[in-house]
């Protein structure tokens, strides 16, 4: 009984820490996006709340929290209320299997635990993909339950888009899975130790897989240039048209949480997770975790910057272009990557 209590207590502490870190990142990601976009467009971005607008996320959060809770008259209130939760929770659940630092056991006050790996389930990547698909239900249900044609169109678009690009994500990572021989995020990251030439994008020649993954991840998170579901110039705000206040904030947080999640997955699968780009570690053995977390953070934030960079550069695709690109370009490329990787791995391991 005591053992179970300890296990549950440590797990709860880890969950709380991860949630705080992720949600803080998400909050300041909204500010970072506005700032980066404005710097790329000769503007200043938010400047009023705090020095250089640094407290803008707090002001936004307070505003959204105190807004009136509006449910449209014709809406299905149960699904209307469920949709934001269904959108945010799967996005947050994925963080349970991300390895943030070295897979080391630490002993503290007589308890042994792994501080930087919440859980190491052996189908980690499958778990993330599965919950990412559930997240799409939030968008679809939110679009349907709003009783609004723009919301419905946005939800339908999101459904088609997410299904198309989920397939490409699943195929793009198969190269990595062939190379590592495991679905566990920790094992995949550990297999890439020893310098950047061992990372799967360079050492495993997964460039095609990485590019397909990155593009599909942008589409999967409904970000520009694939924000067909939101498309404010065509569909008002897509599936979010009727949402306001905290419900809207949930959708908003889900979008940014998904961005962080796919960035984490990209870092782990293709860029070695917490592994430094040089062999071994610079810091002594017992401080190596600082270096691991540092490199993981650098990689994740590079991908997040990539999202902003793409958004600042590219206009939105047309719907038929999006579908054609997904099925006629990304899918064959991902399949070719699987075949090529399989052949190369077979020949090398002979």
């Amino acid at each position, binding site marked *: 009984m005591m053992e179970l209590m300890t296990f549950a207590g440590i797990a709860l502490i880890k969950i709380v820490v991860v949630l705080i870190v992720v949600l803080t990142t998400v909050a300041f990601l909204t500010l970072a996006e506005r700032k*980066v976009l*404005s*710097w*790329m*467009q*000769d*503007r*200043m971005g938010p*400047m009023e709340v705090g020095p250089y607008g640094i407290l803008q996320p707090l002001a936004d959060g307070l505003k959204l929290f105190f807004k009136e809770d509006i449910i449209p008259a014709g809406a299905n209130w149960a699904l209307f209320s469920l949709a934001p939760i269904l959108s945010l929770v799967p996005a947050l659940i994925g963080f349970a299997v991300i390895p943030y630092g070295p897979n080391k056991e630490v002993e503290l006050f007589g308890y042994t635990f792994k501080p930087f790996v919440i859980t190491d389930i052996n189908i980690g990547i499958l778990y993330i993909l599965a919950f990412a698909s559930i997240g799409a239900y939030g968008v679809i249900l939110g679009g349907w339950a709003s009783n609004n044609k723009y919301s419905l169109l946005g939800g339908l678009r999101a459904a088609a888009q997410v299904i198309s690009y989920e397939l490409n994500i699943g195929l793009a990572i198969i190269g990595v899975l062939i190379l590592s021989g495991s679905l566990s995020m920790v094992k995949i990251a550990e297999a890439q130790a020893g310098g950047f030439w061992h990372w799967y994008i360079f050492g495993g020649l997964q460039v095609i897989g990485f590019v397909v993954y990155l593009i599909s991840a942008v589409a999967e998170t409904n970000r520009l240039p694939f924000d067909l579901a939101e498309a404010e110039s065509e569909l008002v705000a897509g599936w979010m048209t009727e949402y306001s206040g905290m419900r809207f904030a949930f959708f908003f947080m889900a979008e940014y949480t998904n961005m962080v999640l796919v960035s984490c997955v990209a870092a782990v699968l293709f860029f070695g997770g917490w592994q430094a780009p040089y062999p071994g570690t610079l810091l002594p053995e017992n401080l190596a975790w600082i270096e691991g977390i540092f490199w993981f953070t650098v990689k994740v934030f590079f991908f997040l910057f990539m999202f902003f*960079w*793409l958004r*600042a*550069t*590219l206009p939105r695709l047309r719907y038929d272009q999006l579908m054609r690109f997904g099925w*006629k370009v990304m899918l064959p490329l991902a399949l070719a990557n699987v075949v090529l990787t399989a052949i190369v791995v077979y020949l090398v391991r002979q």
Partner: protein
Amino acid sequence: MENPTMTLGQWVKRLTFYEILIGMKATITVFIQRIILRNRPAVTLQYPHEKRDLPGSYRGMIALLRYDDETEKCVGCDLCEAACPSRVITVISAEKEGEPMKRYAKEYYMDMSRCIFCGLCIQACPVDALAMTKEYEWAVYNKRDLRLNKPQLLALGDRNFPERERKIEFQHHNVAFFNIGHHDLPPMTSKDQPPVTP
């Protein structure tokens, strides 16, 4: 992929997302200039804290002017009212006490909520009694606050044009008040005043 005769170079460009990379280079160049090199200022102004320089010909709020001896320039001729295309101006003119040939604006109203800032009233005024200031921050909660009366319009003129024109003292009372543009005045007779050149 619609074009069957794509050259090898075109294929390479398409496969490497060449055109997209060009665009990404443009945005990152601006980003680096702005944040790392710091040689590219923002084009926006932090408006309530910073304000842009207005050109000399800026058309802002309209004001009534005075001469240097604090008397009003306006002679109550109603020409501004006639010139106004949106019927902003209402002039109620009256004779000056004891001076039957001299008139003045007993009441003068401008409904600035209707004003289109065309400047026709300023052009129409024969005595240059109206002028446009550079004031533009005139948002009010009650639109009736924009109906300005004569003291308000004079106060606007006072605070925007501290240097006042000299009053023309030498005019005969019987000269019609339309002739008074200071550019076609008779030569000066008074000793202490410099001659006015055209």
